[in-house]
């Protein structure tokens, strides 16, 4: 997450209203901090908002640390100002879905409900 938090806050609120418990960490998170938080909170999913063009580094490093710390089964998704041509690259890094500006709320909720249900099933617990 970089210096812009409007979109992230809107998504957090949206997910709260859909019944999710959302841990909002604030701005300027490093991949280390993001992964440490997800680990302590036993998160089902990590959502990252990036508008600063640092998305390759942020997502790539987060995905790497997740694997390193045994969080490979946690859903990684994100959004922000990301060139559509980079989406493929992010998906290869392990980002399950990238939402671009204009993505609909119900789409985000539906994606997350499905993805979390899938990982919980394969894992046997929350």
């Amino acid at each position, binding site marked *: 997450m970089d210096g812009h938090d409007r979109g992230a806050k809107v998504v957090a609120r949206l997910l709260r209203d859909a019944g999710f418990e959302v841990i909002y960490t604030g701005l300027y998170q*490093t991949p280390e901090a993001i992964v440490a938080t997800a*680990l302590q909170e036993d998160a089902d999913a990590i959502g990252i908002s990036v508008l600063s063009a640092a998305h390759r580094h942020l997502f790539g490093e987060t995905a790497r640390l997740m694997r390193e710390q045994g969080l490979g089964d946690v859903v990684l998704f994100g959004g922000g100002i990301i060139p559509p041509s980079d989406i493929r690259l992010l998906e290869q890094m392990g980002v399950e879905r990238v939402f671009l500006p204009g993505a609909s709320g119900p789409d985000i909720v539906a994606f997350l409900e499905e993805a979390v249900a899938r990982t919980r099933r394969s894992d046997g617990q929350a």
Partner: protein
Amino acid sequence: MTYPTPETRDPRPETRDPRLFDLIQQALAGDARAAARLMTLLESDPAAVPEIMRQVYPRAGGAHVIGVTGPPGAGKSSLVDTLAASLRVQGRTVGIVAVDPSSPFSGGALLGDRIRMQERFADSGVFIRSMASRGQPGGLAKASQNVAALLAAMGKDAVLIETVGVGQEEIDVVRVADTTIVVLVPGLGDAVQTMKAGLLEVADVFAINKADREGAERLFKDVHLMVHMGAVEGQWSPPVLKTVATEDQGTGELLAAVEDHRRFLRETGQYAERRRRAAETEIQGILRERLLASVTHRVPALGRYADEVGQRQYDPYTAVDRILREAQLDG
């Protein structure tokens, strides 16, 4: 009356689930991932709770448990953060349980206490767990106490529990914490007057936060006077301290006051007394829950009584008499 044999006294002499057993051992050995998983189970899997707590509870006595409570916006998260930072400087490890309210409509929650604790994220000596209250009244989540116990059993020297923003009566933190800090801020005006019964009575230490703001001096004097009037010889008299959490002002003094309180509890034997009282409340709570579950199990048609009482055919006391008779639990 026959006394139960050891075999029947505890229906779960060994952990039945080997995966759960491993998880508990890993967590107690300090594995953060395993601990985080257990905390989720403590929150959401009632069947796993007794198994976890049987191993955790006896090991959970070492940490000093510090409750931080106060009205919304008082700066509890910031204060917890500065306290954690100071404890770390002293070389002590810290567990934090931060509770925020759940939405009564969606059941979801936006847990934002971490926003004020960002500098702690990269410190492996601090474990922060956010919790949604999930409809539990009293300022804590149902599992907060057990999660705090797990952090203690993992060897954290201090466990900080931050409640939701509270009013007057959400004071459950008192029965969980060894020392309760009540955080107040100027600008609440007469709210402080009305809080005199309840929240203000349970403080072991007062923090007048945002003390650089207008009205802080007056609030300080008001609380000071209130404490002074209630002072009893030989009893702990809550110190009143000024803090500016965002500037890290007054944190050292606040921590010193917590230490003083801890020493007082130890020297007067009240430490054990507090924990005994907390255990009593805990036992009663679990007993109430188990008995209710047992009755509900034996009397499946509980709803029929509600129908009839709702129609004023008879009263709720009579209903309970009949239910207990049907469950064969009366007398």
